[in-house]
């Protein structure tokens, strides 16, 4: 059974939501029941794939062990960078191994199981925050529930451990839970509409009109793919968030009208938000702090530009070790850097940035740059370029 893809999944969720609702309106904790449901869904999703299931299990135990050992190391040795990087690297090794093996085609499906890319964020986040001294203990139950939480296991949204635990241990008043449940249902329906009606339509347009030769077809492909990608992923995210709500977890939003963005920085606050904010908090900010403290660059702007390019380059690599994903990451890194330089240096920008006509032009340029980014992401751009050369 595919999570969020098969009809049977939605039937099972509807059935599983009934006891959750009863617990919720009685103001009883939903977490133990929710964890049980999560285990059942993970087993159903991986039915007939015992090897993948074993890897998933091994991965979660490994990440949990790393957090437990590092907690003790952190108490003993304090804020020591060497130990920190060792454990951070260890927590990333399964994902790095999975990506590198992917280059060989990975015929034995080593470390291949659903959600490894997304689960790694959660494991790494915990290690980083132990180093920061923000996390002082990790409960096994909360750890495994966060890792496996079935609405978000395959493709996010990427939740954070402290936020997740707060939801788990909060008694939600009846009226609030009822409203959450209602909002959840609405989000699931809206997500279905996005994914099954809108995304499918754009996909069909792309299939029928986007594969001819010539610039016109390429443009149709670019715009219809961009909208398809949005409605497909935002639709999935809405469903995942909606189902989370029913189980008493306020999984964070992943999209906020990305196509109205007025610049690329604005876009990354609206598109795949939980991913870009993860990168902002755990890579970009930390890199910038290092640059500024060690005075790596003469000008702040140069440092920021390098930071943006490295940050987005890593994001590209995370999507996959494929030329077009890496190109996509670097493309956005360069765009962010150029945006930053323009906004800090241009007198014209500072003078006109609040005027309507200027915002319209900004929006128009951003929209097309974003669409071109998706064109790269789709792999079609490198394919067409390959044909030209």
């Amino acid at each position: 059974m595919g999570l969020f893809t098969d009809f049977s999944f939605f039937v099972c969720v509807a059935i599983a939501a009934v006891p959750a609702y009863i617990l919720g309106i009685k103001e009883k904790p939903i977490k133990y029941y929710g964890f049980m449901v999560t285990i059942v869904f993970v087993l159903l999703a991986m039915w007939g794939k015992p090897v993948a299931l074993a890897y998933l299990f091994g991965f979660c135990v490994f990440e949990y062990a790393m957090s437990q050992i590092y907690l003790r190391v952190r108490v003993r040795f304090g804020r020591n960078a060497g130990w920190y990087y060792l454990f951070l690297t260890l927590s990333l090794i399964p994902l790095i191994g999975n990506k590198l093996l992917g280059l060989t085609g990975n015929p034995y499906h080593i470390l291949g199981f659903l959600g490894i890319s997304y689960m790694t964020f959660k494991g790494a986040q915990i290690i980083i925050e132990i180093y920061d001294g923000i996390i002082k203990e990790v409960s096994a139950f909360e750890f495994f529930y966060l890792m496996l939480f079935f609405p978000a296991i395959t493709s996010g949204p990427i939740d954070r451990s402290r936020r997740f635990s707060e939801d788990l241990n909060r008694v939600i008043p009846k009226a609030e839970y009822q409203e959450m449940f209602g909002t959840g249902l609405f989000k699931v329906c809206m997500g279905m509409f996005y994914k099954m009606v809108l995304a499918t339509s754009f996909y069909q347009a792309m299939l029928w009109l986007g594969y001819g030769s010539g610039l016109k077809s390429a443009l149709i492909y670019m715009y219809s793919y961009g909208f398809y990608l949005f409605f497909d992923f935002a639709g999935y995210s809405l469903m995942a968030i909606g189902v989370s709500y029913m189980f008493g977890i306020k999984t964070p939003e992943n999209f906020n009208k990305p196509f109205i963005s007025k610049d690329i920085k604005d876009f990354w606050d609206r598109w795949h938000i939980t991913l870009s904010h993860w990168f902002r908090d755990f890579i970009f900010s930390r890199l910038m702090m290092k640059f500024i403290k060690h005075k790596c660059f003469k000008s702040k702007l140069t440092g920021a530009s390098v930071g943006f390019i490295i940050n987005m380059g890593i994001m590209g690599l995370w999507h996959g070790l494929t030329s077009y994903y890496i190109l996509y990451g670097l493309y956005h890194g360069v765009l962010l850097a150029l945006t930053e330089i323009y906004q800090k240096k241009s007198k014209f920008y500072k003078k006109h940035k609040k005027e309507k006509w200027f915002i319209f032009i900004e929006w128009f340029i951003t929209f097309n740059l974003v669409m071109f980014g998706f064109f790269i992401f789709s792999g079609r751009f490198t394919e067409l370029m390959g044909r030209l050369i």
Partner: protein
Amino acid sequence: MEERLLDILEDICGDEIVKENLDINLVEEDLMDSLDYTELLIAIEENFNVVIAPSEVTREQMDTPNKIIAQIKSRM
């Protein structure tokens, strides 16, 4: 301490309005982006010896001068 923080904020945001309206929303008003936020965290560490990690508090908990002051005070 408050005065020094407001000087820092004015410097980072490039607008003296942060000294006049202590409840102004720095994010919504486009006065502080993620780069500025990083600078703010470093300045807080250097000036007040208070370390706030980038992921420790949400942006909503640090989006006005008053909230920032409160966050620093609670750690001093």
